């Protein structure tokens, strides 16, 4: 495999791994927790390094995961005092841990390879050079192995606990009455988020971790009404963002992580505008359709109410619509045109007649 292909494979695997727990973060309104965790893990990595003085030590990984869980606990602790709301608590906890990490790096580890640019954007392009070799056999890039492990872990976790996670996310109280321990599920999920963030952070940096965890699920949310579909669609969108982003970066000679993160945003914008049911365009179309339908119904009711009355001839003329219904002449003409075309109204010179269909429309108006 060329290193180009390896970079793409790593990005795709990490995108898939991030999207899975991201779905639950989005549904639990905890999207910003991914932001916090993906930054504070640096604290765990630095502390782990200062204790072991070895960048390859598994203690760094463990420390990072623990910091992620610590972040969630601190945020919830602050939140439970009722003195700080959850979003503010996140904004308080994560800069503190992150900045302590930055201070520790600059004070004690300035000459070590732990630089703050890499923290934000990662160094995906170099990932293939950090390989795992076991007894002389090249097993592949470390990031790919770690990423695959995390992807399998996430698949296993959600596959095994799909029903429990779904209920605890939708209705935690009912989950608790059934004995499903929503608090335990919550912290398990947060541990999974931390593990994923740490693994992904190493290869792609914290900005891309957030983008891959939140944007694909938020996009899928606009496109489906099923949780299971939302899960696989998020994976698909994440992988697509990673691959398209990679080629875009290659073509434009720009940052790979930046380009991938941009693609997640582009896909979201696409769904936001063009999602078949909930997109802006579809909603606007529906509104317009409803506006015309409503106007025609109003016209029918108006004609129906004045049919047979003494002022019928005056009320039921095209000229009257403008004054009586307070429609602009233009709008009145358009409504009339549509109503005629739809067989609701018949026009004879300056008189308007409701057709049979128009009568029915007038009678059902307001009934449903």
């Amino acid at each position: 495999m060329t290193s180009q292909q390896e970079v793409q494979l790593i990005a795709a695997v990490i995108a898939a791994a991030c999207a899975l727990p991201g779905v639950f973060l989005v549904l639990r309104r905890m999207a910003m927790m991914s932001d916090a965790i993906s930054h504070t893990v640096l604290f765990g990595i630095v502390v782990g390094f200062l204790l072991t003085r070895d960048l390859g030590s598994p203690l760094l990984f463990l420390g990072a995961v623990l910091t992620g869980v610590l972040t969630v606990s601190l945020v919830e602790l602050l939140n439970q005092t009722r003195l700080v709301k959850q979003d503010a608590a996140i904004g308080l906890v994560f800069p503190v841990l992150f900045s302590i990490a930055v201070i520790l790096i600059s004070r004690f580890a300035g000459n070590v390879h732990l630089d703050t640019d890499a923290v934000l954007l990662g160094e995906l392009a170099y990932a293939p050079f950090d390989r795992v070799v076991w007894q002389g056999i090249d097993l592949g890039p470390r990031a790919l192995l770690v990423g695959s492990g995390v992807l399998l872990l996430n698949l296993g976790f959600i596959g095994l606990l799909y029903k429990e996670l779904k209920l605890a996310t939708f209705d935690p109280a009912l989950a608790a009455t059934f004995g499903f321990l929503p608090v335990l599920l919550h912290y398990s999920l947060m541990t999974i988020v931390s593990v994923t963030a740490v693994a992904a952070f190493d290869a792609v940096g914290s900005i891309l971790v957030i983008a891959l965890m939140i944007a694909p699920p938020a996009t899928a949310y606009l496109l489906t009404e099923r949780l299971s579909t939302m899960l696989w669609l998020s994976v698909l969108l994440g992988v697509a963002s990673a691959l398209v982003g990679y080629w875009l970066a290659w073509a434009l000679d720009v940052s790979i992580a930046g380009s991938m993160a941009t693609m997640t945003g582009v896909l979201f914008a696409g769904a936001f505008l063009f999602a078949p049911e909930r997109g802006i365009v579809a909603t606007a179309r529906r509104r317009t359709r409803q506006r015309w339908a409503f106007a025609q119904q109003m016209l029918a009711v108006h004609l129906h109410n004045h049919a047979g009355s003494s002022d019928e001839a005056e009320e039921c003329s095209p000229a009257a619509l403008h004054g009586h219904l307070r429609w602009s002449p233009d709008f009145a003409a358009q409504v009339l045109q549509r109503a005629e075309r739809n067989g609701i109204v018949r026009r004879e010179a300056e008189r308007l007649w409701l057709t049979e269909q128009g009568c029915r429309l007038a009678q059902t108006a307001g009934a449903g």
Partner: protein
Amino acid sequence: MMYQPHQPHQPPPRPPAAPHAAVPAIAVSDLTVAYHEQPVLWDIDLHVPAGVLLAIVGPNGAGKTTLMKAMLGLVKPAAGQVAIFGGPYRQQRQRVGYVPQRGSVDWDFPTSVLDVVMMGRYGALGWFRRPGRNERDLAFTALQQVNMEAYAARQISQLSGGQQQRVFLARALVQAADIYLMDEPFQGVDAVTEHAIIELLRELRAQGKTVVVVHHDLQTVPEYFDWVTLLNVRRIAHGPMAEVFTEANLSHTYGGRTAAVPRR
């Protein structure tokens, strides 16, 4: 899409709700619940006999929802205990169905009506086991009971308030419990749904089930229920409607601020 239910395999029948009348469906003793050392329920004692339709009534902040949550083990009491058919709630989970307040969940959650009703079976399934055909059939039958079967495949965000409430009721029915705890099921539903719900509650009582409802509308209390608990942090009164639902008790419960006159 019409969904044809198979013969649902009903869960095995349980022993009668009250093996001997001495064991109450719910027994609350000396229950005190506090949030941040601020008591919301003070030393509550209640015995709810099996087979009654009980309303819990009281002003805002009286602790009605908290009492219900304490019965379900959702809040930890500072003192006292709750027994369900003589045992702790943990051992009787399957015998209690819970209908939380409609507003307590996110109705934009990506799921269908039938799927939400199936969630009522999750407790019986336990950890890890997935719902299957049997659960689908039970859920569909429960939707028929609340006249919502036509909405089975509908996404839940498309439901009106009354329809949401019916879906929640169906989700509790599918549990085939002996006790139903409902938190304001009449909140914000139209007259048709209210009527349908009360019919359903009476049907449950006729089957010997015990139904406890947090209720707000004093006017309908004597008509809908046969037992009542008047609550305002403390237990003001508790018992059969005729004995308890008196003007004096109500005035005591609401601090003399109620204009509602019991219709009897």
